[in-house]
């Protein structure tokens, strides 16, 4: 099967990367199909965030290829197709910013200089604010919101372009059980109703158990498939 005939949403092909001399990832391979929900687990410092940053083109692999929707990541242009919720995202900002303003920054890549958003952009903004239950707090300062609400604002920012691939890096850090349940519900909705591919990085299996199609562990620089049902991992490559 060629990449052209069946483009995955995200594909790592024999990717090697290290910040210094020590490689963090060694010939790691993974394909995430459109509409698939893949959970990525692994201990602290194993390279989960690094893998996500490579997948989104924020880092360049020293060997191997990363493809987004069939295109080499360095030549990928349809940025609206991507949604990214970074780990420990900058919710603790030094200057005031309202919830609506934060969410709106997700559209900045779609606007040409000197242009403001179209009606469709405004509709998308309203839609994601509703979807994430933020309509009532849209004018409030982000820093005045609870941790769970802040996280939802950052997810709304990632969703505002109507992406086809959503990357969430530890989205439940500092979020209470109720907010986790709400997040889980909205993710289920996105996957089943909108058919979005999701990569979900987390220590906490509760966040993805039952929704994830596959669980992948980053271990010693490689990606190892973990059966979501049986905790004992098999060593087959993914």
């Amino acid at each position: 099967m060629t990449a052209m005939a069946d483009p995955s949403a995200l594909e790592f092909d024999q990717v090697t990367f290290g910040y210094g001399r020590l490689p963090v990832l060694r010939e790691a391979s993974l394909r995430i199909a459109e509409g698939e929900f893949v959970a990525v687990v692994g201990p602290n410092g194993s390279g989960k965030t690094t893998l996500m940053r490579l997948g989104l083109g924020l880092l360049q692999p020293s060997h191997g290829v990363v493809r987004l929707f069939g295109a080499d990541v360095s030549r990928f242009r349809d940025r609206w197709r991507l949604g990214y919720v970074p780990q420990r995202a900058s919710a603790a900002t030094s200057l005031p910013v309202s919830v609506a303003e934060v969410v709106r920054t997700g559209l900045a890549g779609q606007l040409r200089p000197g242009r403001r958003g179209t009606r469709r952009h405004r509709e998308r903004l309203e839609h994601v604010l509703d979807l994430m239950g933020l309509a009532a707090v849209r004018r409030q300062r982000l820093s005045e919101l609870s941790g769970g609400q802040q996280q939802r604002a950052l997810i709304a920012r990632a969703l505002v372009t109507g992406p086809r691939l959503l990357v969430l890096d530890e989205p439940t850090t500092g979020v209470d059980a109720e907010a986790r349940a709400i997040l889980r519900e909205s993710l289920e909705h996105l996957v089943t109703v909108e058919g979005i591919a999701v990569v979900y990085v987390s220590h906490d299996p509760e966040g993805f158990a039952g929704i994830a199609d596959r669980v992948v562990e980053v271990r010693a620089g490689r990606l190892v498939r973990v059966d979501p049902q049986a905790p004992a991992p098999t060593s087959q490559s993914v």
Partner: protein
Amino acid sequence: MEILQFGFMQRALVAATVIAAVAPLVGAFIVQRGQSLIGDGMGHMAFAGVGLAFLVGLNPLVGALALTAVAAVALARLTRVGVGGDLSLALIFYGGIAAGFFFSSRAGGGQNQVLSFLFGSPLNLGWDEVAAVTALAGAVVVIVIALYPQLVALAFDEAAARVAGVPTQGLVLALTVVVALVVVAGMSSIGLLLISAMMVIPVATAAQVASSYRATLLLASAIGAASAVIGLLVAFYANAPTGAAIVLVALGAYCATALTRLLAGSLQRASS
């Protein structure tokens, strides 16, 4: 007010108020990016530019613009090749002040004029200089408005902005260039050593009371303009240096706001 009868006072008022209103519009982005001192780096480099201009007989604005443009590009390059933000800024800082002083010492009779740009001398401006300052400030406003959504995205989360397709490298360079424009536009009225303060202090004041980014920008701009007007009047009646008076007024507004919030907070706690 009778002091407005004086032409030199009118010119000083226009030049200082325009730049003090515009500086926070740029400052908000550098403060949010944790680069509050970048304006100072540009100021030192502009000093070298002014010195060089006097040495070779150019308009000081042209010399300052040329060298700050070089500094803007160098800063972007240095950061990209891994000379961290703080260190690359330090290189530009010290290089600028040393070169500026070196050039000005060779400029003979021009030396005093070169040094006058360090703290500004708004009372000596001609209308042509005021027009140049206003044009530079206008260019800054146009650029900030045109790139506003992208600049906000960059300031709050550079990685997410890049993923979303914002051309962050070019945008960082554009931001550095507008910082340079503000510094050059402000050097004759507020001075190279103090103009950066007007990019930062009004923003810090506005941030204490505003609840959105947009409101912070607009309020900071208003605070900057008001500080310029009040500072100029204080300087005139107290026979004090203008740039220093303007910055001290801005700082006073910051302290007053912080104190008021502190008092209001403890009153609230006491009554509950």
